[in-house]
């Protein structure tokens, strides 16, 4: 009790310095949590992907397409229940900063993705309209899209101005479903290409393949690829999850950089905290010497310094962790690129561990110095 009282009073002896250190620690712990959550969110798409869906693409690269004629041959493979086409469109709505994913799909795509929840009448209306588009709830909320609105997109991969009409707004079956995207008819894309660039028509970016049993994914993938072996466009078929992880792997260096930055943030605050503790300990050298003269041992002095460091780190860490959830909500809404952006319990544990490491590491040197101070030297020290 006495030790705790002394620790807390020492901790708030220089209020401004302590409050600034606490603020710095809170911001560092918060930043660390958000950066870790960005990494988690990056993988969230892959985590949410299904093992019951396969993706067949050109074996060379995603930049190369597959003939639409492959669809029937894929459908003929045993175990395949459904096949859908999907092309990444990559257009711009009004200006580049408004980026959102757009896919040209065939209607069966929606049957493969039950997580996109769309009212039956809106689906029917979309199917009736060649220029019809479906937008996710998050996208609709962001830009204020309503059913019936015109949606002009400027093509980049497929140049020209493309006119769409919003025919449906779909929701996600759960919070992990990305609803910040747009889908439209693959046939509309293909028919337009036949007019504008005939050589680019009748090609598909990827085929999304529904299978009877997730356990058969490997065997079916092998069979599909075997069908197109030694053809002009060999295929690579993998589970949707593996396909998504392949995308994430392309960003490996960015993710690694984010991870490094998150630890750099903690290292910086460790240096700040260590400096605070060193300054405090140096100012109190004569007090430590007095306590030693009175009979208090080196362990008591070390406990005083570790306790003070722990008190500051606990308060700063707790504030940083507490701010995590509301800031994550704000970040999700402001950035709008992650379907899931929630600070996980693992991240909270890591944040707490970082605060604890900072508390201990910052106090080690001052504690050792205080424990070793010679009484006669310490009594001569002037704060």
């Amino acid at each position: 009790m006495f030790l705790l009282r002394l620790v807390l009073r020492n901790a708030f002896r220089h209020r401004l310095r302590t409050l600034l250190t606490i603020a710095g620690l809170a911001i560092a712990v918060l930043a660390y949590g958000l950066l870790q959550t960005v990494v988690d969110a990056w993988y969230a798409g892959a985590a949410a992907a299904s093992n019951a869906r396969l993706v067949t693409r050109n074996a060379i690269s995603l930049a190369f397409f597959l003939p639409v004629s492959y669809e029937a041959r894929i459908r003929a493979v045993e175990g395949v229940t459904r096949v859908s086409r999907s092309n990444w469109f990559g257009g711009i709505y009004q200006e580049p900063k408004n980026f959102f994913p757009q896919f040209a799909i065939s209607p069966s795509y929606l049957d493969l993705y039950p997580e996109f929840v769309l009212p039956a009448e809106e689906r029917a209306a979309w199917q009736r309209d060649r220029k019809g588009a479906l937008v996710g709830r998050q996208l609709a909320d962001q830009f204020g899209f309503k059913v019936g609105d015109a949606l002009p997109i400027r093509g980049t991969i497929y140049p020209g101005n493309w006119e769409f009409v919003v025919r449906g707004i779909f929701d996600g079956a759960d919070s992990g479903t990305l609803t910040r995207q747009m889908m439209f008819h693959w046939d509309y894309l293909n028919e337009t290409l036949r007019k504008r660039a005939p050589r680019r028509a009748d090609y598909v970016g990827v085929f999304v393949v529904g299978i009877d049993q997730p356990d058969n994914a490997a065997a079916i993938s092998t069979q599909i690829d075997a069908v197109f072996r030694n053809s002009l466009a060999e295929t690579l078929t993998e589970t949707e999850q593996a396909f998504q992880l392949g995308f994430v792997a392309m960003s490996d260096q960015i993710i690694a950089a984010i991870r490094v930055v998150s630890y750099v943030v903690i290292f910086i605050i460790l240096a700040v905290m260590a400096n605070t503790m060193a300054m405090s300990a140096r100012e109190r050298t004569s007090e430590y010497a007095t306590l030693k003269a009175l009979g208090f041992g080196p362990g008591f002095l070390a406990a005083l310094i570790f306790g003070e460091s722990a008190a500051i780190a606990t308060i700063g860490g707790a504030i940083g962790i507490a701010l995590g959830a509301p800031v994550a909500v704000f970040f999700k809404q402001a950035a709008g690129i992650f379907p899931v952006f929630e600070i996980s319990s693992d991240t909270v544990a890591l944040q707490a561990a970082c605060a604890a490491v900072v508390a201990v590491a910052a106090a080690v040197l001052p504690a050792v110095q205080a424990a070793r101070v010679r009484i006669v030297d310490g009594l001569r020290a002037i704060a």
Partner: protein
Amino acid sequence: MLVEIRNLAKSYVRGGQAVPVLADITLDVEAGDFIALMGPSGSGKTTLLNLIAGIDKPDAGVLRVGGVDIAALPEAELADWRAANVGFIFQFYNLMPVLTAYENVELPLMLTPLSRAERRSRVELVLSVVGLSDRMKHYPNELSGGQQQRVAIARAVVADPTIIVADEPTGDLDRVSAVEILTMMQSLNRDLGKTIIMVTHDANAARAARRLVHLEKGELIVSP
């Protein structure tokens, strides 16, 4: 004999060279004595006081306090010995600024097995002896220099030590406060039988003691 010093020597290493501070000091202090150690700056009086108080160790010689060879004690035992046997009064009071007068006086008792109630009664008693019953909840920066030194005196006596060491206890005080402190120390010696060893530059302060010991260039000049 409470303090028995025989052929005590101490030197410090400064700039790679050993500088002798005390040489061949022999001195006895009876229980209940009040000694003033005087001498010019650098004469070794504070070093001798530190050795007697067990916060520094001699290079050679014998140093017994209450029959205990304190020079031979390891650090941890020496700390326990100090807590039980030595009361400190410093020139700049050396109070903990984050603790009240009451808590500062209570500090040495935190190392004893006394209960909270026992500690309270002792602290209140010594604070009343030094005339600060009404300032118990005040922090050091809310007290005058004289009052802070009285708190330090209360802290020095609260654990009922064998010996009180005072290093320039009036060095930072005005004349009136200095007289108050010296009167208080005389009272501790005379009425409570406390053994006090005081380092001072001030001849007036030294007159409060029963006995004067002069040091010059690390050697004892007068030892009646």
